[in-house]
């Protein structure tokens, strides 16, 4: 189409800038594979404790990495509790309030588990909680599919700087950051290589 804007990058990482690691930008790892694994296990236990078992639970991952995390959580729930918790995908792109400002995003598939979400306990799963706008959009999108009994939020990282009155029920790690920094989550299923959470850019230390 017309020249105003080049085609958008891959759908998997619309917010990730290219890593510049030539000494100008600083990349430091803040969560190693083992820590990520432990954090997920802890979240799994918390979810079960809060819910008093796995009954009526539905995990909905927010693309892209939230979906991977939801599947990992489900596997842990299964090994702890011995029951399969339904996992689904909830794309929130079309409910975002910042579409006008963002370079356009490819829309991912929304896939709800067979039984739907009516009267279920929905746990939204995402990698990083930041402004809260993604979760607002997710709550909006959810209402199109039914009326859950409750909605909870599990995130791997909470980096603060909320712009909306939203908080997570289950947090893998609280990570104080500067708004100039970027938090990158890499998961082996999506990105290849080892799992890692790192902070990029911002003020060099």
């Amino acid at each position: 189409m017309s020249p105003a804007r080049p085609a958008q990058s891959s759908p998997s990482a619309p917010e990730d800038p290219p890593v510049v690691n030539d000494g100008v930008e600083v990349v430091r790892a803040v969560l190693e594979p083992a820590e990520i694994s432990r954090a997920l296990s802890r979240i799994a236990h918390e979810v079960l404790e809060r819910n008093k078992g796995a009954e009526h639970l539905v995990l909905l991952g927010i693309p892209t990495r939230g979906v991977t995390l939801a599947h990992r959580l489900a596997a842990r729930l299964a090994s702890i509790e011995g029951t399969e918790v339904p996992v689904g995908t909830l794309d929130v792109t079309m409910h975002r309030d910042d579409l006008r400002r963002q370079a356009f995003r490819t829309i991912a598939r929304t896939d709800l588990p067979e039984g739907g979400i009516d009267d279920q306990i929905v746990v939204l799963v995402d990698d990083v909680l930041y402004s809260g706008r993604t979760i607002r959009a997710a709550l909006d999108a959810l209402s199109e599919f039914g009326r859950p009994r409750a909605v909870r939020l599990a995130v791997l990282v909470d980096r603060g700087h909320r712009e909306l009155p939203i908080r997570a029920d289950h947090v893998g790690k609280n990570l104080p950051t500067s708004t100039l920094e970027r938090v990158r989550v890499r998961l082996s299923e999506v990105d290849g290589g080892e799992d890692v959470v790192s902070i990029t850019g911002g003020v060099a230390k």
Partner: protein
Amino acid sequence: MRHLLSTADLSQAEAIQILDVADQMAATQKREIKKLPTLRGRTVVNLFYEDSTRTRISFEAAAKRLSADVINFSAKGSSVSKGESLKDTALTLKAMGADAVVVRHSVSGAPHRLAHAGWIDGTIVNAGDGTHEHPTQALLDAYTLRQRLVPDAIGADLKGKRVAIVGDVLHSRVARSNVTLLNTLGAEVVLVTPPTLLPVGIDHWPCTTSYDLDDVVNGGHGDLDAVMMLRVQRERMHDAFFPSAREYSRRYGLDARRMNRLPEGALVMHPGPMNRGLEITAEAADSPRSTIVEQVANGVAVRMAVLYLLLSGQAEGKDA
């Protein structure tokens, strides 16, 4: 993407992205609540200088399901020489704050002019201009082909598919848009038309041509995956493009006999509105091979995708 004026402006990646997004849009249309908040507060103007209820309601449905405000501006009858000029209309729309203008015009290039003359700031979507292009029609045709012919459709192109476009290529904006887009997506195109209805100067078009529909149907240019029939206006015979409607349909019409010689699974397409009995018989139009009704339904999803992609991310800003 700022405007959608011609399929020639689309790279393969952009074309596939539109089809992929259309796929997701189609999925939302199976839900109980079809309306999405995506374009809330945006204004889409349907500026139609030509009657085309089908295209207009398709764009209208697409915009409304994305929660845009829709204004229908039917300029037909207000002939440019007598009434308001295109420029003045554009200035009016600009003053009204149109974010996107979907324009249908009988003059080739009118949308291009709207996009580039500096009369208006909004995004321009070409909904058919003269005998030039009709890009959203080609996109919905490609979407339909991909959905029917490619098992794992998301992210896929149309490589290896062969499509015959049959009929009045000279006067067809649908044919022009399709030749370009299908080629971009890797498909092969055969134009089948009487010599009088093939434009002069298409030697470098990315397609082959034939005057013999039977030969093409029989596999003379390779096995076909789809036959796209173009609308032929009866009045053309008065300009000696062909001797009579009967002779045209005998030589270039798709009837049951020809259709049954197509490879199994080959599709029968038509952009509509059809002239039943002229370029296509009822048996062909209503057969299980026919995608004609699907094409209409897919039109809404494709136009939702186009409006979404053109109108999202117009202002640069930080991410959230």
